[in-house]
């Protein structure tokens, strides 16, 4: 419900304590350390202090983490299911103790990387051998060693020739039998031939045979093709065995995947601490840290620093300082902070809109998705995911938010009689031969869309009136009573009067409306100089009714989205129950329902999320919100693979 009060912390510690202090602060997870480069520091600091250069160290850590990540990806295919779902848990002592076994894990990682390199080189070698085999295999039945290139008078020529030309060559021994051609083998399109050619006739030979599309081949080798082939085969066998042994080796190494993950997170923690040290200013014997800390955390901060020789100052933020924003809400409302964060954080002097926005987000999301079955799946799915997969803070918040909105979906689903659409009714009609029925308590959107539209617009009107109400609250909080009454009060009275006049029969309703109207005309021009201008601009302010009307029309999207989901559900149910009450029909029912409703729920959740957020941002926030805040990012651990309890 509020923006956490922050204190500016400026700390001086001994140089030798810098690392330990960084460790303390990272585990404290409450201090955002400012980067001294961007700060406006007093002039004397330049003479006394200089920034700490941690670039080399950070590079070292990052290289190490890259190796660990690579090792993890290498052993990933070999890790069994259990290893992947159970998340390792640590507390501060056990996590810090991991550093002791860093050397061992380093060795294991090295072994994994070497095994992978071996695998790669073996595979390359195997490819080479296979291409050797491919080169040699047409010549297997030749009894001439490849080392033989010819005699002093002759040359051995290996060539291929298209099969269609082979007939022509068969009788051709050259003038005076100066060459002899032997066909070694044939495949689908070529004959592989060996020719022994007298050196004097070599060019003739080549000339004559090139008219027959021959292609001379150079083959390297030092033995009969048959022997080379066998040699290659045996080399392949050896390599294959070597690979299998290697695979086993990697599989065994994969057992320690969990400890590699934990160590990777440990390295991540070291990087965080190094980054923090990198933001310190260094003097000869001291280090200076500046940053922000929430007021409620100052006691833990002081306790954590009790054992160190430090001097620090905690002061309130001054005007114009860039204070980071940490929103504080109760656990039910807190997940909706992610919607606020998506838009923009409030400025430090503004207000935290999360609570009031969450109520409307909850309601409007439920109205758009409006299905009991979908809501149940959403809630169970999201909270189940949180419980078993233990996601990181950002994802966790979003999941909680969807889970909570699932409850609203269930409520509105019950009100609109939608349990996976009209599934029960469709089954009744198709399988049981009964009549179709509606389970709606409040309104059935498909049957009575006008009523739904009126409800949607009514929710929209309430939403917008609340928005300017918040604006009024902000004005009153700043002491601007008169402005609150004139700007906010007059519109509120105007609309309430309008609503009462149109919807009820109270005789005094129109007096409320006229009061509001009068207030608007009299007060909206009050900034102007003379009475004519004041009244003129007062009347002109009624032009704003157009923008109010346009905003109200936006809420008709609640009708559209609710209806679209409901109608698609009906069609899916109709298709699913098409086959009738038989065994085949039942199987068909299950398959179509699973696929169809699965698709429908995915699209509708996305649509509901985006459009509800859009309504909040444009129609709601637009009326009172002061944005421009920057989110509070404390120095803390960001474990990727493990779950750390640090508080």
């Amino acid at each position, binding site marked *: 419900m509020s923006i956490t009060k922050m204190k500016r912390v400026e700390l001086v510690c001994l140089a030798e304590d810098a690392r330990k202090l960084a460790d303390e602060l990272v585990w404290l997870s409450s201090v955002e350390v400012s980067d001294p480069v961007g700060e406006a520091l007093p002039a004397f600091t330049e003479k006394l202090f200089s920034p700490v250069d941690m670039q080399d160290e950070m590079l070292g850590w990052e290289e190490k983490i890259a190796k660990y990540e690579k090792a993890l990806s290498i052993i990933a295919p070999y890790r069994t299911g259990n290893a992947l779902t159970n998340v390792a848990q640590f507390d501060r002592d056990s996590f810090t103790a991991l550093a002791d076994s860093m050397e061992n894990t380093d060795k294991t990682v090295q072994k994994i990387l070497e095994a992978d390199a071996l695998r790669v080189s073996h595979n390359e070698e195997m490819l080479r051998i296979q291409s050797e085999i491919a080169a040699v295999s047409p010549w297997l039945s030749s009894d001439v060693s490849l080392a033989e290139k010819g005699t002093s008078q002759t040359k051995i020529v290996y060539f291929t020739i298209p099969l269609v030309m082979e007939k022509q060559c068969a009788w051709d021994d050259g003038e005076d039998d100066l060459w002899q051609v032997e066909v070694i083998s044939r495949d689908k399109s070529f004959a592989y031939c060996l020719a022994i050619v007298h050196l004097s006739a070599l060019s003739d030979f080549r000339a004559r045979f090139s008219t027959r599309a021959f292609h001379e081949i150079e083959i390297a080798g030092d033995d009969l093709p048959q022997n080379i082939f066998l040699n290659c085969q045996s080399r392949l066998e050896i390599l294959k065995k070597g690979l299998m042994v290697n695979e086993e080796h990697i599989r065994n190494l994969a057992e320690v995947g969990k400890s590699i993950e934990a160590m990777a997170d440990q390295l991540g923690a070291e990087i965080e601490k190094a980054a923090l040290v990198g933001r310190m200013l260094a003097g000869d014997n001291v280090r200076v840290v500046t940053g922000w800390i929430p007021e409620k955390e100052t006691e833990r901060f002081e306790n954590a620093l009790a054992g160190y020789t430090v001097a620090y100052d905690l002061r309130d933020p001054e005007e114009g300082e860039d204070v980071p924003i940490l929103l504080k809400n109760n656990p039910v409302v807190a997940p909706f902070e992610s919607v606020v964060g*998506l838009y923009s954080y409030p400025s430090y002097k503004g207000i935290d809109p999360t609570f009031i926005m969450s109520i409307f987000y909850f309601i409007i999301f439920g109205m758009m998705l409006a299905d009991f079955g979908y809501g149940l799946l959403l809630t169970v799915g999201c909270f189940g995911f949180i419980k078993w997969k233990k996601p990181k803070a950002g994802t966790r918040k979003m999941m909680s938010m969807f889970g909570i909105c699932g409850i609203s979906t269930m409520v509105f689903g019950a009100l609109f009689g939608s349990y996976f659409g009209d599934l029960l009714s469709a089954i009744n009609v198709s399988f049981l031969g009964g009549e179709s029925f509606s389970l709606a308590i409040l309104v059935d959107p498909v049957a009575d869309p006008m009523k739904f539209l009126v409800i949607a617009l009514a929710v929209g009107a309430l939403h917008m009136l609340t928005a300017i109400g918040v604006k009024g609250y902000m004005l009153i909080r700043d002491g601007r009573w008169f402005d609150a009454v004139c700007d906010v009060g007059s519109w509120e009275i105007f609309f309430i009067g309008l609503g009462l006049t149109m919807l009820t029969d109270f005789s005094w309703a129109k007096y409320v409306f006229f009061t509001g109207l009068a207030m608007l005309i009299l007060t909206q021009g009050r900034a102007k100089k003379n009475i004519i201008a004041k009244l003129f601009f007062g009347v002109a302010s009624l032009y704003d009714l157009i923008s109010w009307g346009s905003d109200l029309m936006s809420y*008709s999207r609640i009708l559209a989205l609710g209806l679209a989901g409901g109608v698609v559900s009906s069609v899916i149910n109709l298709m699913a129950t098409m086959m009738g009450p038989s065994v085949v029909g039942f199987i068909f029912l299950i398959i179509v329902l699973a696929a169809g409703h699965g698709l429908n729920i995915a699209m509708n959740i996305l649509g509901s999320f985006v459009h509800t957020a*859009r309504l909040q941002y444009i129609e709601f926030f637009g009326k009172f919100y002061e944005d421009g805040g920057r989110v509070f990012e404390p120095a803390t651990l960001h474990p990727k693979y493990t779950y750390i309890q640090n508080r």
Partner: protein
Amino acid sequence: MKFMEFLLEIFSGTNIAILGAAIATIVTGSASAKGVYMVGEAATGVIIEDPNKFGKTLILQALPATQGIYGLITTFLIIVKLGILEGNVADLSIGQGIYLFAAAMPITFVGYCSAIKQAKVACAGLNIVSKRPDHFIKGVLFSAMVETYAVFAVLISLMLVLFFQA
């Protein structure tokens, strides 16, 4: 007179009204699809640079979708007015059919133009997201201004359809 009967059969009052309703959804839906596609395509460029901006770009992408929704509800109201969902289709005269056809036209034309233009403004708003993400809402508001005229059009369309006596 067979041909005339044939024509009248095709262009009966009810059919003309359905034609208008269908055109409303067709045109506004296509325009919104095109608009959303334009913004989505440009948004991938922003995400390549910084994946954390996904939520903001998603909001900008959702903005041109409005016109398709408005066309949808106009069509839906015409369907309801014709009594199709109750299975009791009203038999309209040609004049009445043309009335409903004309009632669907404001949102059809204005929805088409404004969806495309709104998408162009939203694409420009993506520049704000990439360079100055804290001010992205200004881009959203620029884009939402274009929607005002689609709102006027759907208001007229809905009013004409709502107050129609079958």
